[in-house]
């Protein structure tokens, strides 16, 4: 039962990264691809009706994590106290940046909110990447299951690391580039003309960086945490994951060049899904690895809640997510197609 919840929560978090990932990416590339007021409005319209719903996947994942693995929720949220709070502030700024820009007709007001929107999107991508890096690398858990990490110590990967060390900075940059490419694909799908061309160019240069960083971080991860290979030795079917990563990486620039932006978006989605899936596969059954003593690690077995609520939860979760997928399908279908600057649509 706890394995099912491990998979479900991985799926929810992956859905979050894929969905909010493209609107974060749109924010990151907005200064590069949208050069004037109307173009910036186009970007905002492309994500406007959906960004809030996308962000709900983060909240819902947090709720599901709290529900299924209360000890993990308690330990990781308090241990990652400072970076989480910074992420919360950035999420606030980003919401303000998206939604308040259009309320006042003044170029200074627009510039300010453009900046807030882009910088918060960029920093969020880096922080989310660093968060994944921390989970993969392991944290200094005590015997009671708690820890506290400073923002940085000496930037080395050791038994007493900070949130930011060279490895997590690397994963942060990887996330930044990933979401840049993913967001560029989305913007290319939703726009035409100059903005679309610029988005495709950003996607291509981003892709070059992405190939480089994927290779570097793969080597770095095996160096920092050799144990991640264990599950690949036991369960050989896991090797399909690196094949998928490779396939997605190779197909992205080909598809962009062919002008199949939607297919390229699917490819970057596949890249994100397989990377996160690979991380979850390698971690299992650990949820949070201890850098101090492996026996202190939080696993799905020592963090789970009672089996009654996990079983009941499966019922309401399936109903709730089926409804949510229904709403999302409806909304994305409703707002499908290229965005234009007609009178309705806001921003």
């Amino acid at each position: 039962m706890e394995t099912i919840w491990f998979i479900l929560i991985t799926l929810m978090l992956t859905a979050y990264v894929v969905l909010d990932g493209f609107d974060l990416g749109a924010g990151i590339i907005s200064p590069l691809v949208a050069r004037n007021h109307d173009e910036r409005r186009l970007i905002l319209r492309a994500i406007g009706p959906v960004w809030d719903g996308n962000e709900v996947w983060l909240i819902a994942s947090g709720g599901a994590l709290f529900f299924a693995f209360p000890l993990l929720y308690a330990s990781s949220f308090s241990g990652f106290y400072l970076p989480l709070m910074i992420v919360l502030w950035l999420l606030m700024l980003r919401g303000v940046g998206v939604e308040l820009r259009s309320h006042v007709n003044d170029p200074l007001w627009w510039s300010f909110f453009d900046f807030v929107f882009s910088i918060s999107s960029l920093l969020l991508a880096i922080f989310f990447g660093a968060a994944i890096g921390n989970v993969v690398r392991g944290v200094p858990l005590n015997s009671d299951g708690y820890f506290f990490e400073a923002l940085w110590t000496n930037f080395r990967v050791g038994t007493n690391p900070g949130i930011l060390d060279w490895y997590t900075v690397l994963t942060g940059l990887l996330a930044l580039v990933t979401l840049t490419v993913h967001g560029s694909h989305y913007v290319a799908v939703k726009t035409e003309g100059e903005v679309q061309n610029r988005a495709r160019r950003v996607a291509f240069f981003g892709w070059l960086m992405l190939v480089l960083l994927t290779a570097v971080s793969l080597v770095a991860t095996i160096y920092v945490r050799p144990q991640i290979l264990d599950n690949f030795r036991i369960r050989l079917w896991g090797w399909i994951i690196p094949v998928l990563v490779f396939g997605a990486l190779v197909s992205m620039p080909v598809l962009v060049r062919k002008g199949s932006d939607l297919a390229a978006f699917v490819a970057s989605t596949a890249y994100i899904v397989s990377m996160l899936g690979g991380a979850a596969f390698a971690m299992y059954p650990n949820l949070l690895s201890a850098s101090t003593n492996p026996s202190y690690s939080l696993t799905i077995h020592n963090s789970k809640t009672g089996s009654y609520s996990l079983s009941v939860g499966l019922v309401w979760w399936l109903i709730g997510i089926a409804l949510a997928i229904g709403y999302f399908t409806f909304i994305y279908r409703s707002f499908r197609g290229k965005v234009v600057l007609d009178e309705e649509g806001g921003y």
Partner: protein
Amino acid sequence: MDSALVIHRLHFAFTITYHYLFPQLTMGLAPLIVIFKSLALWKGDERYNKAARFWSKIFAINFLFGVITGIPMEFQFGTNWARFSHYSGGVIATALAMEGVFAFFLESSFLGLFLFGEKRFGQKVHWLAAFMVFAGSWISGFFIIVTDAWMQHPVGYEIAGDGTAHLNSFWSLLFNEWALWQYLHNMGGAVITGSFAMAATGAYYLLSRKQEEYGRLFVRTGVIVAALASLFQVFPSGDRQGKLVTDNQPATLAAMEGLFQTESGASIVLVGQPDTANQKLDNPIYVPKALSFLTHRRWEAEVKGLNEFPRDQWPDNIPLLYYSYHIMVGLGTIFILVMATAVVLLWRKKLFNARWMLWIVMLSFPFPYIANTAGWITAEVGRQPWLVYGLMRTQEGFSSNVSAGNGLFTLLGFMGMYTVLSILFIILIWREVGHGPEFLGHEESTGRVFPAAAKT
């Protein structure tokens, strides 16, 4: 003041109090917007759509602030109250996780359609979107109340081998009697905030003699709904809530009422200052025997005073609890008086010319915020010294791995952030109210006369 416990308490108290300023208006306005949309469909009158459009602009700004100040709340159980989360996550996280999948997805999905889809998808879909946003916000409120109700009155759980609480009855958790009445009382409070805001905006238009047609619509809708909701807050919802406190949290009741000594035929204090050191009330103005009647339905019934309970079970801030409770009840009484008067004037067709009354209606909109906040302080300070009533004390629940220094750092950060948000909010709402409903775009008038305008 520098202990980690105090900082974590202030952290949660500050962020939740600020956050709840927004959802109460969201949940209060949502049904009123649905009413306007329904009237527009039913009567085929475009002006109801214009009214709905105007309020949806206010709603959108308010909703955004509710969302961005609400995200931290879902995280703060873990960040600042880790030991509590570990202990009670097996129960309350069911409610919180359900809120995510049943409420947040619903409201966030349909909000975009509601705000940007009126012309594109037509009036029926737009009505549906408005209704779904309303449903989402009210479902969300329900799950939060279920969470708080479990902390007030734990049910449907067992203590597992590792000492944490595990759910053993899903339906007992959801249909906790405490949750039912607390929910109704809370939603009544939200409707009061929404309807007062609507009435006050209308009164502003009438007093400044602009957009008077909409001014009349807003005042009429606002005062009728506000009068009904204010009555509902006293009976049945407030009365039943009080009964639950009497039966389940007797020490809290004694502290709320400032009742230090057990009394038969206890009187209810309207005004007075509690002196905890000498265990008495200074300068009391009271109604004899009323407390006994309200709590036990008998004039001579005995009501337990604080002297019946060991000191370590007294709420730890009796004056704050006493005052917040009295402010809530006092304001609630004033709301009934104001809105009943307004309804009588409306019925006699004098309200729109009674400028003195319009002034009162206009200036009264902040007070529901104060009453709602005071009500929540009553509930949460009243639960002290317990974090989960009877099971876990507040000092056992905070994140002991997060130091006071780190806690204060982020508390100050939130204070700064929320100061900026407050300024932005006031500027934007002020601009929207200044524009008013009259000059909003998308006119598709059906050409019918606004019936209300002719009659009043």
